């Protein structure tokens, strides 16, 4: 019923690392919540069900806990219903998660041959005798990636995560998405192994698309939690790039590189858990104090909320993949595994990998821009609203939650070899090669890439040299006893005020303009001009909203088609009785005519004649006059 192999244990460890600081944070946040019992019951059963999913040993238990995880998180989104959009977001999440669940159920019904009680190991033989393994793969992708939030099934994330209470957003984004990654690992390794080459390429393409699309939409967001949710899409994309590379290498027989890519994937999974939880907690604290999610209403919070600001800065640096943080290390490993593509013999595949490298590098650059925006507009400058002015540091429990999570981030940075040795054990448990000795050949100082002439990075040396140099220079500054004077910022002769600052919309302006073809933004510009002068105005208001392309094209067109179908069903269901009689008459004619055409004899003349008769009788008798 339950199994405790290394993969499960490592993921239990991930869930605990993600949820223990969160419990502290949540208990500080609790005063803010009205339905305390409802919240607590669902909160703890949510954590429990996630642990249940990763420990489950057979399909039935897995599906029960998976569904419990979905339902409890759905109820948690509905904890504080103050706006109508929350209910809509919860409904959207409910539909999307059950859309995925249907495919998981189908998948497990096929691979268990109807007996849901058997373990994962015995599913393998049934799956390998199944005639269409690619169908199973697509079921798995649809099932797990709709939960993980990969393109094109990512649309629910920017709605569901902001609507939930902040500790829950941190758990959902930081931990629950990783449970989906666990599912992918478990199923692809234990049940659907070996993989054709195409599967890895599919995952790689999904990953590259998710990472770019996630970060681009994050840049155009004004809602801080929606911004972070879009970054979850990006990071899931990066995780999937690593996963896809691992699968491709494994299929091509490059076992060492494959293990390296999978270790990088697991490492990034852990890192994303740590910094994304921390970011959501920080955003939650800001939201708790300012009562708004709009990033344009913040500003200057570093002065009143130093702990939040400092931990948020750490997480921002880490998620932007800047050295020497843990986010950098895992992205570095994924980069290195992609550079191992020079070992591939297949030239067309080899030529395709640089595009994935490009996507990952571009994502890194845009993520930096996005987090400068998120951090700079939220915490720096002057207060942009009265709410921000009255903000002060959050209570002790929330602070300790954030500090504990920051410690998790730092531990991932400092104890990289320890974590990697565990990831190595996971892969050995899944039947891959052990490559710990190749990653750390000379002790724990240098992290080696396993490719031919691979690169090396030494996280601790980088950290120590950066901190040491900066501290040395700061000490020098103190010693010099430089004379200091405090004065206002120069504002061209005007007074510097909150309105002279750059806004988040303005900050992302150049990038938004460059990607106009993708965003197709909805702009509103209202200007009160003075006496008809073009350039003189008393007030002006500029707003821009970006609706994601996928939502517009994929989801709304599906909704449109469903609308048209339901309209006709409705019309057919609400005819008078004479019309029904006419329909029956027409159907009978149709049957008779088609019998004659298909079974008896065929001639074009009678076919056309009968067709005309049919059309006329349908038009006259059923559709009637257009009103």
């Amino acid at each position, binding site marked *: 019923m339950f199994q405790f192999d290394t993969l499960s244990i490592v993921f239990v460890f991930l869930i605990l690392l993600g949820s223990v600081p969160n419990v502290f944070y949540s208990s500080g946040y609790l005063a803010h919540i009205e339905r305390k019992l409802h919240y607590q019951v669902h909160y703890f059963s949510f954590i429990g069900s996630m642990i249940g999913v990763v420990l489950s040993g057979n399909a039935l238990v897995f599906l029960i806990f998976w569904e419990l995880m979905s339902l409890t998180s759905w109820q948690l989104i509905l904890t504080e219903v103050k706006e109508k959009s929350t209910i809509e977001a919860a409904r959207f999440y409910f539909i999307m998660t059950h859309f995925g669940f249907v495919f998981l159920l189908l998948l497990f019904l096929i691979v268990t041959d109807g007996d849901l009680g058997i373990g994962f190991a015995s599913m393998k033989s049934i799956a390998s005798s199944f005639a269409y393994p690619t169908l199973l793969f697509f079921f798995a992708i649809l099932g797990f990636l709709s939960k993980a939030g990969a393109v094109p099934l990512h649309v629910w994330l920017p709605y569901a995560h902001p609507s939930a209470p902040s500790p829950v957003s941190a758990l959902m984004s930081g931990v629950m998405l990783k449970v989906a990654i666990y599912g992918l690992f478990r199923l692809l390794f234990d049940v659907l192994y070996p993989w054709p080459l195409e599967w890895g390429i599919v995952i790689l393409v999904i990953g590259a698309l998710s990472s770019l699309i996630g970060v681009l939409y994050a840049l155009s967001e004004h809602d801080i939690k929606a911004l972070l949710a879009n970054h979850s899409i990006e990071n899931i994309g990066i995780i999937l790039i690593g996963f896809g590379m691992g699968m491709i290498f494994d299929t091509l027989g490059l076992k060492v590189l494959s293990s390296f890519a999978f270790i990088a994937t697991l490492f990034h999974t852990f890192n994303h858990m740590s910094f994304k939880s921390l970011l959501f907690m920080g955003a939650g604290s800001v939201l708790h104090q300012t009562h708004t999610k709009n990033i344009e209403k913040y500003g200057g919070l570093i002065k009143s909320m130093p702990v939040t600001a400092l931990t948020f800065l750490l997480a921002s640096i880490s998620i*932007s993949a800047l050295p020497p943080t843990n986010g950098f290390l895992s*992205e570095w490993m994924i980069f290195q595994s992609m550079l191992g593509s020079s070992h591939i013999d297949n030239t067309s595949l080899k030529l395709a990998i640089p595009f994935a490298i490009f996507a990952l*590098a571009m994502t890194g650059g845009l993520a*930096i821009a996005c987090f*400068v925006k998120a951090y700079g507009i939220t915490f720096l400058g002057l207060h942009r609203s009265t709410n921000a002015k009255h903000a002060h540091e959050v209570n002790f429990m929330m602070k300790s939650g954030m500090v504990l999570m920051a410690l998790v981030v730092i531990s991932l940075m400092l104890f990289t070899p320890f974590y990697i040795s565990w990831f190595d054990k996971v892969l050995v448990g899944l039947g891959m090669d052990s490559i710990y000795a190749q990653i750390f050949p000379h002790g724990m100082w240098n992290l080696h890439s396993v490719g031919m002439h691979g690169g090396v990075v030494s996280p601790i040396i980088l950290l120590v*040299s950066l901190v040491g140099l900066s501290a040395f220079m700061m000490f020098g500054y103190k010693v010099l006893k430089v004379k200091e004077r405090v*004065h206002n910022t*120069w504002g061209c002769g005007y007074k510097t005020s909150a309105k002279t600052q*750059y806004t988040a919309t303005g900050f992302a302006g*150049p990038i938004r303009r460059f990607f106009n073809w993708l965003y197709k933004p909805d702009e509103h510009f209202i200007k009160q001009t003075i006496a008809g002068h073009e350039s003189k105005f008393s007030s002006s208001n500029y707003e821009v909203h970006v609706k994601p392309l996928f939502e517009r094209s994929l989801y709304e067109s599906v909704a449109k088609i469903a609308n048209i179908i339901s309209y006709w069903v409705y019309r057919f269901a609400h005819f008078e009785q004479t019309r029904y009689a006419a329909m029956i008459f027409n159907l009978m004619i149709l049957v008779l005519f088609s019998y004659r055409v298909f079974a008896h004899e065929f001639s074009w003349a009678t076919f056309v004649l009968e067709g005309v008769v049919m059309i006329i009788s349908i038009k006259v008798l059923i559709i009637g006059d257009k009103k």
Partner: protein
Amino acid sequence: MILYFITIISLVLLAPILLSFIKALKMVLLFKKPISLLQGYRNFSKLMQKETIISSETSSITRYAPFLVLSPLLVTMFFLPPVLKGAYYVSFVDAFTITGLISLSTFFLMLLGLDSASAFGGMGSSREAFISALVEPAMVLTVFSVSMMAGDMGVGQAGVNLAHNFPTKHMSSFLFAAISFFILLIAENGRIPVDNPETHLELTMVHEAMILDLSGVYLAIIEMASSIKFVIFSSLFVSLFIPFGLEYSPLVAILIFIAKLFGVAIAVAIVEVNMAKLRLFKIPNLLGISIVFAFLSLITFYVLGY
């Protein structure tokens, strides 16, 4: 080991001279009376003696960020390819780490711009974010392409390998990478046509806008950082794309290296004199060229094989 430190210190000392040299050369080409090559040092010492004015709107970020802008660049100096044979060098640090360190410095510079609550700072940060987001993929692809040709991911070792054993077979991809990297050198250091380092007109400012509210020691630190950044890029260009002269005796090798750095400076100055600054929204076209050349370089390398 001693040679290693001597070269790093001499490069750091050379940094302000190189920037003054570009400026002086431009003035000569425009028939003006050139500034002295030591102008950089004069500015530095003047700024060090001045009092520091800290804006009352700023937070602790302004107090710490200048050091964090400079220190990643100083760390990067230690990872560059060696100037002469026999000098110790950190062979293993790869392009992604170096790009990351430079981005870390830019990250804090952008925060610095947003901290002073002035519209200029935000404007500069916003533009810098835009440009550096596009520079990053080109930079990674280019340097990796070169590292592959050199047969080692570590930039230091790649420089040595290229000097000893130049891959004439891959001359085409080498040239593509060189073109791409030169565009990046211009873009990352804020030279014309991407940014004008001498302007104080808000329509064209990028780098200057971010540091408008700094003064005294902090400004000196940022100026030093930007000159060191130029040295990093130009010495990467020199050791990866003009790889010769390592095997001579130390003094000659250093002189050759410095001469090559001045060569890069001359090229930058000539480009600056002959071009107008591009509009901000035309810059992606230039960087797009750089990305395309980086791709071409990698693809020709893959097609030709080892």
